[in-house]
């Protein structure tokens, strides 16, 4: 090649202004692909996508009217699948367009690093929503249930009653006062999701379903909206470090009070609801000025030790006349066992442990992916420690974080939980495509957004029916599983590791879980 030609190539480059950082383009992860033979050019998909991935471009004029065709922007699809599921002609497929680097070690992180140098938003902490999608193994998947054969008959749930009713709370034999126990028809409660992180319509659907099912929903840290006063028999209110919406009405209209110390997705991290999300209604419910950021500090500013927690527990008990059980929710962390024992001794009636798979409206990506421990080991360690200290019967345990189906529910119970909290499963039941972008407040399904037009995508009645249907289905599945194990009341499974066996686990893992190897 001559020198001339080389020179001309470089001058050409100048004209075209090739500069990676200036002409920044996010690497494409997902995108809609349209089947234009099926597509009737109705334009619904462009309206459906709240993320700005689909634009309509003029195609032709037909009968004097302009006709537009949808195309992908290749910029912002997060694979929520909303457009795909809404398209009346089934003309859309969301495809994964993996950016494959030749460098295997860097593959995953290269993309994230690029996002952090995006010139439009340089140097930002990566945010993410929902529970961790880390590729660590799930212990749930490596545990198998026992079943009855010959020596012991299975119970047929279609013929014989199998009972799921559960009472949660402190059973104190020595005290004279009659303890207040929380009665739930099924050992599944709806986990905390605050008004603000989800909209009011979703909360109402949640509360309605809890009432129909005879279980509980949880306000999360955003206070209790007036419209939900009526659901007090099925409401757990949450007091978190921001103390949003904590007032007499809040304590009156609930069955139990939860103190949130931590959340599985972001142990040791507070919360942040940006000011633009604090609408008039939210500001009233949270009792903060409209438009101001709602910041939950990482620690409660009055809890720096276990004694402080005890004071808050008893302050709440005094406020509620010792009539309402107090829950304490903590993230599953390495030394969860002594922490739980301390909380039980501090006077909590119920302790909820949230594993690292637990959902969140927004968390720093690095925290979500690499802090905390799986709920399976945490609940097992906590249950065992409480038994060793002979106080297991004085407190109930709720397992949370990463419970995906009815078998997970029952495995968590066999590992020592009295009941479980589900959150992500609730959202998935309402449509959620698990795109992990709730923090952006643009949820196309209308779940984790307060924009009135989007929230309108949720029909309260249909949504609550979906939830009721889901939990009824899970209950039936749980009964089938219990019947197969020859057990007709759920209490007989709490901590019953004898009914579990492990596969593909090291002896150390089996030991922590307290489960025997399959075949033993």
């Amino acid at each position, binding site marked *: 090649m001559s020198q001339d030609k080389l020179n001309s190539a470089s001058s050409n480059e100048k004209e075209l202004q090739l500069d990676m950082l200036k002409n920044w383009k996010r690497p494409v992860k997902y995108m809609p692909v349209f089947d234009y033979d099926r597509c009737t050019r109705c334009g619904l998909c462009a309206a459906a996508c709240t993320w700005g991935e689909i634009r309509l471009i003029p195609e032709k004029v037909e009968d004097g009217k302009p006709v537009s065709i949808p195309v992908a922007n290749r910029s912002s699809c997060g694979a929520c699948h909303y457009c795909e599921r809404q398209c009346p002609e089934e003309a859309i497929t969301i495809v994964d367009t993996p950016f494959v680097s030749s460098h295997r070690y860097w593959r995953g992180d290269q993309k994230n690093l690029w996002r952090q140098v995006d010139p439009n938003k340089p140097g930002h902490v990566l945010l993410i929503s929902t529970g961790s999608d880390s590729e660590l193994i799930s212990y749930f998947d490596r545990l198998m249930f026992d079943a*009855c054969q*010959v*020596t*012991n*008959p299975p*119970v047929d749930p279609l013929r*014989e*009653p199998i*009972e799921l*009713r559960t*009472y949660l709370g402190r*059973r104190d*034999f*020595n005290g004279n006062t*009659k303890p207040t*126990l929380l009665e739930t028809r099924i050992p599944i409660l709806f986990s905390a999701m605050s008004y603000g992180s989800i909209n009011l319509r979703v909360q109402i659907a949640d509360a309605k379903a809890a009432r129909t099912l005879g279980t509980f929903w949880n306000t999360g840290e955003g206070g209790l909206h007036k419209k939900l006063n009526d659901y007090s028999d099925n409401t757990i209110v949450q007091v978190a470090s921001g103390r949003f919406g904590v007032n007499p009405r809040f304590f009156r209209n609930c069955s139990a009070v939860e103190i949130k110390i931590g959340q599985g997705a972001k142990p040791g991290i507070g919360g942040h609801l940006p000011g633009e999300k604090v609408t008039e209604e939210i500001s009233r419910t949270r009792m903060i000025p409209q438009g101001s950021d709602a910041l939950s500090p990482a620690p409660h500013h009055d809890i720096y030790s276990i004694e402080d927690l005890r004071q808050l527990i008893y302050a709440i008990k005094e406020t509620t006349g010792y009539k309402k059980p107090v829950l304490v929710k903590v993230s599953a962390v390495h030394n969860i066992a002594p922490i739980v024992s301390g909380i039980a001794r501090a006077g909590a009636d119920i302790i909820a442990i949230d594993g690292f798979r637990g959902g969140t409206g927004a968390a720093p990506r690095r925290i979500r992916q690499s802090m905390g421990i799986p709920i399976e080991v945490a609940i097992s360690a906590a249950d065992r420690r409480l*038994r060793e200290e*002979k*106080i*297991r*019967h004085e407190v109930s345990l709720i397992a949370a974080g990463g419970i995906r189906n009815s078998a997970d529910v029952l495995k968590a119970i066999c590992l020592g939980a009295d009941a479980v909290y589900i959150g992500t499963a609730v959202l998935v039941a309402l449509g959620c495509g698990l795109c992990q972008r709730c923090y952006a407040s643009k949820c196309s399904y209308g779940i984790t957004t307060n924009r009135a037009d989007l929230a309108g995508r949720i029909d309260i009645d249909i949504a609550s029916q979906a939830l009721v249907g889901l939990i009824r289905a899970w209950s039936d599945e749980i009964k089938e599983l219990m019947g197969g*194990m*020859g*057990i*007709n*009341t759920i*209490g*007989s*499974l*709490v*901590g*019953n*590791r*004898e*009914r579990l066996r492990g596969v593909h686990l090291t002896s150390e893992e089996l030991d922590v879980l307290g489960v025997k190897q399959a075949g033993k």
Partner: protein
Amino acid sequence: MCGIVGGIDTTGGTIKGSDFIEAISVQHDRGNGLGGGFAAYGIYPEFDRYYALHIACNNERSAKRADEFIRSHLYVKIAEDMPTKDVKNIPWHPLLKRYFTFPGPSNEDLKLSNLGPTTVHDEEAMLDAYMKKFVFNFNSTIPEAFVMSCGKNMGVFKGVGYPEDIGEFFLVDRMEAPVWLVHSRFPTNTQSWWGGAHPFSLLEWSVVHNGEITSYGVNRNYLRMFGYDCSLRTDTEVISYMFDLFVRERHLPVEDTCTVLSPPLWKEIESIQDKERRDSILQLRQYYPQALLNGPFAILVTNGHEMVAMNDNLKLRPLVGAIRGGQCFFSSEECSFEILCPDREKTWMLKGGKPEIVRMKEGLNVAG
């Protein structure tokens, strides 16, 4: 499977051991020769102040260690070999010893035993608690030896074999007693050993059981919190410990204990008209979910004064009752009644989850 038989003479009269041997032998097919046993009450009237320890040791060495252990913790009134007779079908047996004992060579030892003050209500309770602790210590520290029974004026005679052979071996045919429990074993969960045969006994409570306790893991965990070690490798022992815990330690009436172990369904509880009764049953079920026994079972439990016969809620194991005069019998199969009480006035089938409680000198107030 497994076969169980029990009998109580509420008038204070006695029933012959030979009758029970025959009564269990007609249920031969319910066992497989891997376990049989008898509990008899009121058999040591001359030593009724002493705790009668029935001990089995696999060899001379363990017997020696057992003897040392017993003597260092208990006052021994009498120590002797258990009277037995050679029986063709029992080719091997452990060394069997009988001790009549009393807690502690001195009071100091009582203090040293670390009893929590909250569990002790009076002297009798303190002595019982000491013995209980002694038994658990014995079973866990002396290898290849175990306590078959330790109550006053009662004893358990059990081992590996068909119950009719075990009965002959222990000379049960020469005994007479007002209260009896008998068991024929068909083990399914655990390997057979002498310690795994029934009846299971702790202090005054003994139990025979046909079935499988699927809630065993939960029950064992619960009992461990209150000092009961489940070391005998079988699910049945939890039943005797539950009775000991609820009736002896927590002073719950036997009726309420039965409710705790096998409560009515929630729906049934809700439909109870009498509010006080409803609340009390509801509370028992709310408070003690970990004590509930799940799975198929028929059990007979006694402390020598009262006998409880109980089935699981779903009635997955057979259990029938019979009455003759002031005597009441329970059995897995009616055929045993043809031996025990051919002239019975009444035979009835027990209902699932509805325990029958028969008490000494109170007459027969059973559902049948």
